């Protein structure tokens, strides 16, 4: 199936989105080389230095310093690390959990489907931000728990969309034929159902990258994410908001980084949806 895909890179949105995300990954990996300072080093004689194009800038701090005299550029670069880890692990976890439950529910239907749907309903009546904050209270801070909390909040969106698609596919003859031909439940789910919803999963996956990064910054912003010793874009926003009257750029930079990440992920998702959906439609059309 993968071989038959039209080159998704033809789509400019895919190209731009993927490049933006890739650039952030490279920055995160090369952080120790790129960052001019230790991100936690406090130079209390150089607090709230403005970025280089403004008066009073210091050569050593291209993007200035925050209220504790820490280098904003270095913190941005190191902050990319948490964003990259969260933005890559959370979507994988969400896909695995959400899709598995959705396929099982859609395939077996009946009581299992009913139970799954009601669980999703109840889960979704918690506002996502509120639920993730509350989960973090119980789980105690730390990168692993941030990932766990985000997956536990976001799997429902995957589940709902994928289950709907599975129900559509279940009506098609080839699923019944596969059963008649002697395929086991697991075989049908993996070979017939999973490929049919693959384009949806890929699209949701890309969008989830952005959502995961945003959720982590929200948790950091409130102060219940990773330990304060690890720089994150969200904690930079919280710090920047305190000193916003003296030095607004300390707030503008991390906000821009999150926006670039989210826009990159959404463009990638949009582009892939266009590419993969048309392919999916023609393939289904040929089958019918």
């Amino acid at each position: 199936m993968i071989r038959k895909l039209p080159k998704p890179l033809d789509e400019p949105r895919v190209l731009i989105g993927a490049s933006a995300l890739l650039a952030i990954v490279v920055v995160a990996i090369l952080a120790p080389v790129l960052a001019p300072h230790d991100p936690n080093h406090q130079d209390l004689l150089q607090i709230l230095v403005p970025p280089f194009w403004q008066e009073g800038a210091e050569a050593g701090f291209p993007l200035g310093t925050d209220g504790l005299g820490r280098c904003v550029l270095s913190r941005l670069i190191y902050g990319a690390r948490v964003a990259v880890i969260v933005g890559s692990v959370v979507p994988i976890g969400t896909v695995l959990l959400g899709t598995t439950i959705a396929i099982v529910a859609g395939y077996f239907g009946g009581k299992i489907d009913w139970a799954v749907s009601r669980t999703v309903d109840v889960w979704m009546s918690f506002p996502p931000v509120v639920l993730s904050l509350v989960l973090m209270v119980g789980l105690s801070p730390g990168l692993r728990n941030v990932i766990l909390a985000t997956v536990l909040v976001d799997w429902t969106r995957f589940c709902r969309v994928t289950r709907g698609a599975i129900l559509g596919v279940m009506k098609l003859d080839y699923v019944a034929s596969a059963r008649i031909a002697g395929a086991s439940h697991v075989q049908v789910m993996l070979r017939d159902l999973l490929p049919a919803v693959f384009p949806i999963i890929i699209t949701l996956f890309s969008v989830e990258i952005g959502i995961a990064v945003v959720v982590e910054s929200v948790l950091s912003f409130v102060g219940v994410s990773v330990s304060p010793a690890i720089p994150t874009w969200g904690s930079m926003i919280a710090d920047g908001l305190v000193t916003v009257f003296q030095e607004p750029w300390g707030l503008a930079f991390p906000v821009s980084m999150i926006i670039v990440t989210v826009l990159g992920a959404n463009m990638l998702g949009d582009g892939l949806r266009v590419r993969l959906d048309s392919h999916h439609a023609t393939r289904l059309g040929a089958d019918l």
Partner: protein
Amino acid sequence: MVGDTRFVSLPSADARLYLGAVRAAQIVGGILLPVLRSIATVAVQLLAVSIVAFVVLRLLPADPLAMMLPPNATIEDAERMRHAFGLDRPILEQFWIWLVQAVQGDFGKSIQSSVPVSKLILTALPTTIELAVFGLLLGIAAGFVLGIVTFHYRGTALERVCETAASLSQSIPEFLWGILFILVFGLGLHLLPFIGPIDARVIVPSHTGFLFIDTAWNGQWDAFGNHLLHLVMPAFALAMLKAALIMRLLRSSLIETYREDYVNAARLRGVGERRILFHHALRNAVLPTVTLIGVQAAHTFGGTLLIEAIYSLPGLGNLMIGAIRTQDLPLIQGILLTYCGMVLLLNRSVDLTYRWLNPRLRAA
């Protein structure tokens, strides 16, 4: 003859009784039953939600008491306190006690401040409701206007500009919009205030807790305007996503509706384009948008948390953040349920509104 008399008397008392009974049955079947069913559903959902909330908060290894004990407290002190708050009983018993009290409107006392949780929530709720309603109304208004405008100018450059703006406005999360607005309109252009719900020097005697209502009640129109200015940016931050979604959906359902025969039929009858749009097409095209607004209303409510934190508004969101920082379990639980209750109620009321707006569903 007998048949005749019956026929003659039919339009009178009997018939009215008969028609009345039919009408009553329709009202019961069409309006009352769905309302009752909705209330029952919300009750069941709230129960499920409170079980989840209870389990999440009590089974996870947070220790709410550790923070309130003095550093020199002995283990016996800790046990005494645990006993005082009922935290040493079996989890099911704790839940039952909590549930019985919660049904009576008693969510316990805040561990941190010893003030009843329900009182804290009721003090904070008006701010959150004002913000959410204002944000939602802005979003709906902007979405409708833009939806109709982009539909009217479909295929032009204006539509493409609006479309790009919408996808941008949809991509950036609310709290980042909030910060961007502060940077641009608050600090850059000095156009709008952005700290607190109203200038600190203004004193508003409270009647309802809703600042809009209270200022109007007292005739403090300056303060009313001041509060409005303070809420403009937070409300816009909440409205960005809604406006984009509503605009897109309304435009596409208008396009779909215009393909229906009755639009052409109206045109053939000589009905003006303006009348076709506002009296014929919009009435049907608006239905999917109503559903969307319902989902978004619930979403707006959850979104207020961070906006309140950014703009220092004393609503549920800031109360929640404070409770989370001090691990104040009864308070967290109470606020969590308030959020969910609002979301569920909003979802249900939208369902009912939809039923009322769409006669095809009412008959079913």
